[in-house]
Every structure is written in C-alpha cells, then in structure tokens.
C-alpha cells in the first residue's frame, strides 16, 4: 500500500502501514493524567500531595510501557517509511506547540516591558489615571518589582556570570549531539555513544548550575517569584525552560541506552533525530532567555 510513497523503502523491512490493534496504554495514561490533575488541584487547595505523585507515577509507567512497545515494534521492522513520516510530522508539530507555549511567556515579558510598566510610570494618557491616582511616585524602570514592590527589595540576575557559562554549555551540547549524529550516520558507534554521553553530561551540568543560580537568587538577591513582574517572568521562563531541559535530558538518556543496546542504523534512527530536534529547540529557547531575560 505504501509502496508508492516509500522512496527509501530499502531501509525499512515493511511496506505496510502499521495500525496497532488495541492498546491499554492510552487509557492508563488518561487515568494517570486525571489522577495527577486531581491530586494537583487538591494540593493547591491545601490537601495532601499523595494523589498527585500517584498520578505522576502512572504517567511515568505509561511512558515507559508505551515507548517500550513502540521501540520493540520499530526494532522488529513493523514500521514502513510512511509510518516514519507520521512520526516526523508528529514531532515537528509537537515542537511547534511548545514554541507557541513559550511565546506566551515571552509575550508577557515584552508586554510588561513595552506597555504595562511604562504606563504605570505615567507614560502616555494610558497610565495617567493609574499613575496619578494610585502610584504618583512610581518611576518606570526595568527590572522592577512594580509600584508596590511586591515581594520586597531584590537584585536582578546579571547575564555575565552563570547565565553566560550556561549559554556556552548549551551551545556546546548542540555541537556534541551533532558529533553523535555524525557518528551514527558514519557507523561509528563509539562516537555516537561518546557524543550522547557528553550531551547528557552537559545537560546535567546546565541543570545543576541553574539550581545553584536559583539558590543564589533566593538567598543572596532576594529574588523570588513574588518579586513583582520581573520575578514572575524570570521564574516562569527559566522554570519552564529548566523543566524542558530536564525532559530533554531524560529523552537523551533513553537514546543513549538504546545506542548502547545497539539500536538505530545509519539510515534509520528517527528517535535519535527527534531527541536532537527537541534538544535544539530547548537550546534556541535558552538563547531567547539569555538575551531577553538576563541580558537586555
């Protein structure tokens, strides 16, 4: 059926579009997601946190089981070139949705800096009433904790210490993962494994430094998510980015273990490419963070 599509069918052992018959994993995932959300809502309402972690555990079990199934199907040659394209499209559009998610928080940052803070400082007739009636002494500046300095005094996070080092780390990890990819394409498995291990190590190093930076921010700079709009955008953007790096590291670890187990061929290694795409996406988001959150 897929023969007319499968230009590079030689790399695949089947021409057939694989439609799995039935699966328990999606319904377990739904129950897990529900448990996690119900638990999180209870937690936020001051209840216990156990339900939330049960949900997280269910999701993790699902991911392990679901991906194992897919990996085994793939390794047993059940996927055609057309199937491969479905996975690629899925990953591309998933990353696009992630781009839009981060765009919201960047948008909030730009809006605050371009509009809300200057308006609160009395710029243009938009700010006149709010500024004049509520906070006549507030002068627009960035970084700011807002007219009422919610969260108290704080010092902003400068760009040229840890953040610059972290930028170098992530950029280097982009190089090491490309090195790994070349190793894979050229059939050099040692380079593949070394490159992946280096990428994982750089990711972990990045996360450790981010953790250290948070401790520094809380302890020494008194910078918290309560520190007005600066603290809000700072923690929202770096926090969600850190979460995505964590996910990326876990993905890369799986790919590393699979590479050690002998998976992937020079022609056929979509899972590796998906992980690499994701990692580059996380990298590019960081560059945006470095420029707009830390630097400018």
């Amino acid at each position, binding site marked *: 059926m897929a023969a007319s599509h499968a230009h590079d069918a030689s790399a695949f052992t089947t021409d057939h579009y*694989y439609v799995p018959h039935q699966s328990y994993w999606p319904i377990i995932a739904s129950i897990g997601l529900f448990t996690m959300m*119900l638990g999180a809502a209870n937690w936020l309402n001051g209840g216990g946190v156990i339900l939330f972690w049960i949900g997280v555990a269910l999701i993790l079990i699902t991911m392990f089981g679901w991906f194992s199934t897919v990996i085994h199907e793939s390794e047993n040659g059940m996927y055609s070139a057309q199937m491969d394209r479905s996975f690629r499209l*899925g990953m591309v559009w998933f990353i696009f949705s992630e781009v839009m998610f981060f765009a919201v*928080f960047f948008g*909030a940052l730009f809006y605050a800096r371009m509009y*809300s803070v200057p308006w*609160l400082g009395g710029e243009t007739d938009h700010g006149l009433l709010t500024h004049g009636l509520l906070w006549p002494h507030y002068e627009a500046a960035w970084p700011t904790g807002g007219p*009422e300095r919610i969260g108290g005094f704080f010092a902003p996070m400068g760009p040229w210490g840890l953040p610059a080092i972290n930028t170098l780390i992530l950029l280097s990890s982009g190089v090491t993962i490309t090195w790994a990819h070349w190793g894979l394409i050229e059939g050099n498995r040692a380079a593949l494994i070394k490159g992946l291990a280096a990428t994982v190590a750089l990711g972990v190093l990045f996360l450790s430094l981010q953790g250290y930076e948070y401790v520094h921010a809380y302890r020494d700079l008194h910078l918290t998510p*309560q520190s007005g709009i600066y603290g809000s955008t700072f923690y929202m953007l770096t926090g969600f980015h850190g979460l995505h790096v964590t996910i990326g590291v876990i993905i890369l670890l799986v790919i590393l273990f699979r590479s050690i187990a002998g998976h992937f061929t020079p022609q056929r290694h979509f899972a590796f490419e998906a992980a690499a795409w994701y990692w580059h996406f996380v990298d590019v988001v960081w560059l945006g963070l470095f420029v707009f959150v830390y630097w400018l």
Partner: protein
Amino acid sequence: MSTASPALDHDHDHEHHGPARGLKRWLLTTNHKDIGTLYLLFSLAMFFVGGAMALVIRAELFQPGMQIVDPHFFNQMTTMHALIMVFGAVMPAFVGLANWLIPMMIGAPDMALPRMNNWSFWILPFAFTLLLSTLFIPGGGPAGGWTLYPPLVLQTGQAFPFVILAIHMMGVSSIMGAINVIATILNMRAPGMTLMKMPLFVWTWLITAFLLIAVMPVLAGAVTMLLTDKYFGTSFFNAAGGGDPVLFQHIFWFFGHPEVYIMILPAFGIISHIIPTFARKPLFGYASMVYATASIAFLSFIVWAHHMFTVGMPLAGILFFMYATMLIAVPTGVKVFNWVATMWRGSMTFETPMLFAIAFVILFTIGGFSGLMLSIAPADFQYHDTYFVVAHFHYVLVPGSVFSLMAAAYYWLPKWTGHMYNETLGKVHFWLSVIGVNILFFPQHFLGLAGMPRRIPDYALQFTQFNMISTVGAFIFGLSQLLFLYIVIQTIRGGAKATDQVWDGAKGLEWTLSSPPPYHTFTTAPEVK
C-alpha cells in the same frame, strides 16, 4: 511480532480484524471509526448538559426579579454553559467527524497515529469530570465567565485549580488530536489525491488543526499564569507588581479569536459537501474556497483586540483591529457567494441535511453581519457586553456550527450506520429547530440594542417581553433536540437499508464504501484519478 508486553498489546493480524467485544472495544480501541463514534456520542452528551444549563439561564430570565436560582449559581451556569459547549460539545463533535471521515475521504487505512488518537479522546471524559465536579464542591463552580478574566476569576474558591487543570487537559487532548489530523492529511492520502483534489472538509480541517496547535498552547500559558498569580504570588496580571490585567485579555483573545474559527471552519467544509450533493452540481469555486479558508485563518491571528475595544487601547491599535476585522468579511463573502452560486440553477431537493445547510447559509450570514456591526469600534462602544453580542455569537455558533453538525449527522449517519433516518421526523426536527432558534436569539439583538447587559440574572422591566419570547424559543429549541436524540438512536438501531451511494448526487471516496463501511477500510489505498 513479539512486543515488550504481549499481555498489554494485541497486534496480531490486525488487517481483517473485526471489533473486540464489550467495554474493552471502546476503552482500548485504535480504530478511527470507533474513536469517531466516541467523540460524537461524548459531544452529544455534553450538548445536552450544556443545553440544560442554558435552559436554567433562560428560565431565570423569563421575567425580571429572581425566581429560580441565586445570582451566584446563575453566574456558574453562564460560565459552565460556555466552557461545556465550546470545549465539550462543538470542538469534540468536529474532531469526531474528522476521525470518521478524513481517513475515508482521503483513502487512508486509519489515522496516522492510532494509539495517540485513543488518548486524545479518553482525556476528555476525565477532563469534564474534573470541570463538572466543581459544581458540587464548597463555593461552587467557576462564575467569572468563560473568558476567565482576572482579577474577577481569581476570586473563584476551591474550584479554581480544578477548572484550570481541566482546561489544561482539554488543551492536551485538542493538540494531540490536531497533530493526528495534520499527520494523517499530509502523509496518508491515497496515490493521486493531491492537495487540490482533497474534499473541502479535509482542507478546512487541515487549516483548523494548524490553528489548534498554534493557539491551544497560548490558552495553556494564559491559565498557567492565572494559576501562579493565585497560588504562587506572581504579578502577571497584578498592576501593583508591575503586571496588567489587560495582558490576560490580550493573551486570551489571541487564543480566543482563532478559537472561534476552529469552531466554524470545519462547518464550512461540511456545508461545501452537502450543498453540491443536493444541488447536483459540483461546488462552485473550489480553489477560491480553499484560499478563502486559508485567508480567514491568517486573519484570525491579527484581529483579537476587537474583543477589547472598550478596554482602552491606543487609537492606532483600535483602527488596525477594526479594519483587519472587517477584512474577514471578504473571504467569508466569497464562501457564501460560492454556496449560493452552487445552488444557482441546480436540480435541488430538500432532504433534511440540505435544509440544515441552507438554514446555515442564511442564519450564519446574519451572524456574520452582526459581527461586521460589532467590528465598527465606535458602534462597539455601545454594543459591548450587551445582549447584542450574545445574539451575534449565538447566531454563528448555533444555527452556524451546531446546524452544520446536525446537517453532517443526517448526511453521514446512513453511511455510518447502514440505515436511513426517518425523513419525516428529520424534517420536523429541522423546522422546530430553525423556528425555535430564531425565536430564541433574534429578540436578543433588540435587547442588546436597547441596552440590556449580558451575564446578569435580573433586568429592568422594559426588557421583559423580548426576554419572555427568547425563553419560549429556548425551550422550543432545547426540547426539539430530544427529537434529534430519538432520531439518532432510532437510526442506529434500525431503519430502511441505506445504499452505498446513499445520496445520488454525493461525490467522494467515502461513498464508494459499503454502508456501513467495514471495520477497516482502505487497507489497500484506492487510486484517485
């Protein structure tokens, strides 16, 4: 064919397999027809839940003063009615149609990612359990309106995290569903099915799926900031901390405006199938329909602030959003023109799907015109937050989106079930609906122009008569949907045998299959010439 967990995954000779038996079939299914059915039945259930809430609203508004419910519960009803109808009824119904129809229309064996397809659906019942449960917890459900504007929405009690996290789940479901649709359309078309040969329902869904992936994460980001503002002390929407509540409105409507096209573009696709069938002429201006759909989708990203004219914006902003909004009338006009031109000198017959389709064209256009009125910023200062707005968006959503769904149900039910529906009852349902919906919503234009605000449980005496008429229409419309339910059940259970072609003027791959189609279709792709 061994798998990691043979006990958990059954993938033996999947080709000529019939459905499994019992509950497992529905819980574990990866079949696009099963999942389509689940989506459609779920959305039908939500249509009645949300409809019951609408009747509570209309019953309370039958006369001035407080009669039936207290104001707080009234506000919960308006909020929940909107959330349920948007995310629970209209959107899943279109996804259900996409599941059933897209693989059959493009000659694909199934959706591109069948297991993820199951997950997309089964998130929804859980998400709506979470949402509906808030009606029963201390403090009640969300009552600040479906737009969730801060700071009002931050006064929600214990329901708040439930609502936010339910919306997150719906977003996850929508995004995965949309990814599946795009992957299916771009990768699974039969040989010869070029993009410009695709049926319009497929085209409109391709563009809708793009809109969904672009804006559902935006809603997710917006509600995440609400959550952190309430529980973690952030200041995104708090001016004292340097934020701005208006920022939420910008972000929400950057999602919200494409969202209204998410709820209407697939409807355009459906109507573009039904009118040619019953006019027995090919669709007039196929290519212009595709380009008009794409233009509407593009424009939907640059008009969001027309929901915020009264909030306070620089004049240049108001003018930009006003003119950009008016531009949408051009591609929409192209579509209406094409539908009318398709009917021009056609050999028309008026079976139930065609009746709903024609009513769609007329009544949706009325909703479009009131939208044009609202886009005029100086006029909008008067209309904003009045019943005129309520009348406008209900005209595009009820005799618009919902009528298209009814039309689709009557049009494809014989294909899905193998039985013809009862034509007489179908026509009765149509006339009750079309009369009821106009009695229900047309007077609301007058109420709005006379100054009645929306989202209030009580009103000044001079609005009484139109409110009474509207409520009578609401009950006619609402109760006649029970007839629809009866017709659907009757058609599923039996009835005259439908032919494979069903409608003599129908064109497309789905009509080459038997009625009902076998469990797996197009395991070998057809050749499209």
